[in-house]
């Protein structure tokens, strides 16, 4: 294991592997096109929990427990837990830590928290700190609705650019790579970028410039070209955000083509499930990676993936006060062991 700083906020890591992942999602997510890739699909939004907040915790706890199990280790082997969620004071992450009782670093980067945790965890392992790190992120549609928008049963019309916060949790166990493990290759931590967007019902367009900034700096630092990736997946830009990112990319000389996709755009049947711009939330990129993307790489369909989770760093108070929405994106390259030897 070793780590080399290759850019302003970019690092190349040696021998950090993903030992296992797990994704647990709600019923709507299970009915989407990626339904078969998730470890567990809840039959109801609350799964018999008495509040939406409790349901969110249960979701994260199940995903973390499953990931530990699938990584063939026990909680005692986990040196550190990294992760976050959307609720005030990141209560889901903190409360779940009460159950597993492992050292915790709670993170907040809104919907970008999964790659922040993944990158940071890998960096710590490469720097020969902890030997095994669990990372996880979660969101629950109903819990997010009541914190950021309106009561669930209140009738109102969503705008075409509004996103649907996913009920999903994803978790991964990182450790020293052994032969078959996927590798966390390179990491670029994002800067906060604000292009003056104010509409909390259009986070895709607010976050697209942050995604571009991190992708550009990641490619520049690593020397990778777009063609070196089988997929570049942003977190939750959605339909509109991806269109803008394509456009911003071509203006900056980056032709993404159909390699560029988005976790939020992929999680649902957009029209049939009536989710407008697509999915959002920390659980979106966490769940889509831990379920779908991980398996695409593991099966050998793909060799290299760039995951760029995107976050809008606002609160209900800041947008009510008319502030613009600062955004961030963290980029992590995950590759199969074969691709690494290239």
């Amino acid at each position, binding site marked *: 294991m070793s780590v080399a700083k290759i850019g302003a906020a970019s690092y190349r890591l040696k021998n950090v592997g993903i030992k296992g992942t797990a994704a647990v999602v709600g019923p709507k997510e299970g009915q989407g096109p990626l339904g078969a890739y998730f470890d567990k699909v809840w039959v109801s939004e609350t799964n018999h929990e008495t509040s939406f907040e409790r349901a969110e915790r249960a979701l994260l706890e199940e995903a973390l427990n499953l990931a530990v199990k699938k990584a063939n280790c026990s909680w005692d082997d986990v040196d550190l837990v990294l992760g976050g969620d959307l609720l005030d004071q990141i209560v889901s992450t903190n409360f779940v830590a009460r159950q597993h009782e492992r050292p915790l670093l709670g993170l907040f980067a809104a919907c970008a928290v999964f790659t922040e945790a993944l990158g940071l965890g890998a960096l710590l392992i490469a720097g020969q700190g902890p030997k095994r790190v669990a990372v996880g992120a979660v969101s629950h549609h109903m819990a997010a609705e009541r914190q950021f928008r309106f009561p669930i*049963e209140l009738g109102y019309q969503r705008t075409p650019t509004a996103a649907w916060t996913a009920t999903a949790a994803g978790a991964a166990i990182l450790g020293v790579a052994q032969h078959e493990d996927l590798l966390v290759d390179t990491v670029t931590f994002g800067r906060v970028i604000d292009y003056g*967007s104010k509409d909390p019902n259009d986070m895709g367009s607010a976050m697209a410039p942050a995604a571009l900034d991190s992708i550009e700096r990641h490619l520049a630092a690593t020397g990778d070209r777009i063609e070196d990736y089988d997929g570049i997946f942003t977190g939750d830009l959605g339909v509109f955000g991806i269109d803008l990112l394509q456009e911003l990319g071509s203006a900056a000389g980056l032709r993404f083509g159909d390699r560029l996709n988005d976790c939020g755009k992929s999680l649902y049947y957009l029209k049939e499930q009536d989710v407008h711009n697509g999915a959002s939330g920390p659980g979106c990129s966490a769940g889509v990676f831990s379920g779908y993307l991980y398996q695409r790489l593991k099966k050998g369909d793909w060799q290299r993936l760039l995951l760029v989770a995107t976050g809008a760093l606002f609160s209900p108070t800041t947008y009510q006060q008319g502030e613009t929405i600062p955004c961030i994106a963290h980029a992590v390259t995950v590759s199969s062991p074969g691709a690494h030897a290239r």
Partner: protein
Amino acid sequence: MADQENTQRVRAYQELVKSRRPSKPILKNVIYAFFVGGAICEVGQWIQWGFMQNGMTAKEATSPTTVVLIGLGALLTGLGWYDKVVKHGGMGGTLPITGFSNAMVAPAMEFRSEGLVLGVGAKLFTVAGPVLVYGLSAAFVVGLCRYLLTGVA
């Protein structure tokens, strides 16, 4: 200089966003609002006629009609249907008194988990509050103008 470049970049981006933003289906929304709102008013009219059949005058029937409509709105909210009515009907579902009922009952259901005092009690008016504040204020101003102009209280 850097600031100026920044402002320009931000402005250019916001213009791009504006030009590409998918537009709301306004015509469809308006037509749906007309029929959904119309249907609710039609139901209200039938209820009022029902009371009038039983010997009330049109004016007397107004209050019980309102009560029945509020009850219906609350019932549909409780069943989880009223949000679907507004989703399609937009203002056609929000503006009638059934929409006001929805705005009261939805937070009442939602904040039960925080208890009867700090939950339901404190949050009951989170949605309807502004409507009440500005509705009452507007009524006061209009009433005052009427008094000053016509002398009728």
